[in-house]
């Protein structure tokens, strides 16, 4: 019964994946926890809480749900909606301090782009342990004495996640498209929905075939979720198609505004799907619309102590830490997705972003100013 409920819930919330789903914040007891039980923390995105609860089944522990405005951990933390204040608040107001003797809280690793472990420690006395990226790894993480294996630190984009993203895009677009055609062309609804779902599935499921060609550095024209290619290339194709259509129908002698409007709409939907911010929908590429995609992470070797905070929070396994020589290196810097987690966490300020002009963006700026919905940091647009 619980499994069916879990499945139904997952399906509904995957269909509506692009919308936030807030749930109640505060303390949840899992099993029969005692004063020594581990304390886990997650965001208040409903699906995330359900998945963490499922992973924690059979483990006696406490689960704290902190306010991320109903958005998933990574997006909320990077976008400034899941902050130190939300963590401090749930630690102080949920009553957890009276229930356990220790002061160790396990946070999802992807929260490291927005939450500063040092600030949490300073303001509350709680030690932050960066847990695995995926909730399903939590049991193995506990068995491994609360240490992560390199595999638990990395993000992937397997077929299951790709299917989820395809569904998450196809559903709202097909609903909007269907509502739009009902009044004037109801007989195409079925075909239109097929087109939307087919294109979305094709784009996401074929991802491994073309992913090596993706490059987020090119200049693009976009609007929140859509990415119209270099110089609005996709829109030009659409305009060209419409002009060709008009020309053809005039030459063929059956020009009507109705048919132009219909075909224009159908092709616009197709163009929109092709123009989805694909890279922003994957965890392995930076969005083609975010300004941060052009930044490079620079490691200042004179400041680095080889403490390895960067390696602990990097979801792309860019770092190698040489403890003997007390220095970190970035042998796989090409995999970086500019999430900034390493910069936020480094206690020695040995890491920073550099923009294409060679200007340095200091770590304090990255800690204080987060990306907004259109992928800009307020500080940059104000030129401060």
């Amino acid at each position, binding site marked *: 019964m619980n499994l069916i409920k879990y499945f139904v819930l997952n399906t509904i919330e995957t269909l509506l994946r692009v919308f936030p789903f807030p749930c109640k914040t505060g303390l949840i007891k899992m099993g029969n926890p005692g004063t020594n039980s581990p304390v886990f923390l997650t965001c208040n995105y409903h699906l995330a809480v359900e998945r963490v609860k499922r992973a924690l089944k059979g483990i006696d522990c406490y689960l704290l749900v902190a*306010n991320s*405005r109903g958005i998933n951990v990574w997006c909320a933390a990077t976008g400034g909606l899941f902050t130190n204040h939300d963590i401090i608040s*749930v630690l102080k107001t949920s009553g957890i301090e009276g229930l356990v003797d220790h002061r160790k809280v396990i946070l999802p690793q992807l929260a490291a782009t927005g939450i500063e472990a040092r600030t949490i420690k300073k303001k509350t006395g709680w030690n932050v342990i960066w847990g695995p990226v995926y909730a399903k790894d939590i049991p193995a993480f506990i068995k491994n004495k609360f240490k992560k294996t390199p595999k638990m630190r990395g993000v992937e984009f397997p077929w299951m996640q790709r299917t989820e993203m395809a569904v998450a895009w196809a559903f709202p677009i097909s609903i909007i498209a269907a509502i739009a055609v009902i009044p004037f062309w109801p007989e195409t609804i079925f075909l239109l929905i097929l087109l939307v779902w087919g294109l979305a599935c094709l784009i996401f499921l074929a991802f491994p075939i073309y992913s090596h060609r993706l490059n987020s550095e090119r200049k693009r024209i976009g609007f929140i979720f859509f990415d119209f290619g270099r110089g609005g290339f996709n829109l030009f194709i659409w305009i060209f198609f419409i002009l060709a259509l008009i020309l053809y129908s005039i030459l063929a002698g059956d020009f009507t505004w109705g048919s132009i409007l219909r075909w224009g709409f159908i092709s616009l939907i197709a163009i929109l799907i092709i123009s989805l911010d694909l890279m922003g929908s994957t965890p392995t590429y930076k969005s083609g619309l975010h300004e941060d995609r052009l930044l490079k992470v620079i490691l200042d070797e004179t400041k680095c102590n080889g403490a390895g905070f960067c390696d602990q929070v990097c979801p792309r396994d860019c770092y190698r830490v040489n403890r003997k020589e007390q220095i970190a290196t970035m042998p796989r810097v090409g995999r970086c997705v500019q999430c900034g987690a390493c910069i936020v966490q480094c206690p020695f300020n040995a890491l920073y972003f550099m923009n294409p002009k060679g200007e340095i963006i200091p770590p304090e700026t990255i800690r204080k100013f987060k990306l907004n919905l259109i992928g800009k940091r*307020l500080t940059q647009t104000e030129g401060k």
Partner: protein
Amino acid sequence: MSTYILMKILESTPSRYDSGIRILTLGRLDRVYNRLTSHIKRGQRVLDLGCGTGALTLYAAQKDAKVKGIDINSQMLEIAKKRISEANLSHRIDLYEMGVAELGSEESESYDVVMSGLCFSELSEDEIIYTLREAKRILKPRGLVLIADEVTPKSLSKRLINWLIKFPLVIFTHLITQTTTNTVKNLPEKINKAGFLIDSIKLNKIENFIELVGKKP
């Protein structure tokens, strides 16, 4: 009052917040804040919870009080700082980036007034209970708590009207900013339960906005 939801859109672009709020509230919020701060006396120590861009903070400072404003949004605080220095009131106001969960660091019985405008509706139940408990601790005896906020109407019909006005706006704000405003449930009861006496309550016609004055015994 449902226009307060639109605040959320503005909140994500703090630099436009002030001009936006003036249009949205048509001066109503100004009247409310002016009335509420009339309880503050010269020279009193005041704490403003969730001061945002400093609207309520400024009113209190104009009553010659010494105000401490706290908020978790650093960008809003930057705007507050600018407004305060333009009003030449910097000497009476201190701003801190901190949340209500950090009130534990404030000294007991150190404030005459704890006030908050549109902040309690942003807090979770746990946070509200914690905040009221801490507010009572840090207030001097007979100190005041002043609150202006969105609340859930008591009667079903008014809840329904409120919901009908609000629903389209909720959807709209969700799409644009992926956030929404909330309302506080049973605020007077919570204030009572935290050990305050209620001096006065003023509700608007649809009963979705409250001005409350409470007192520590």
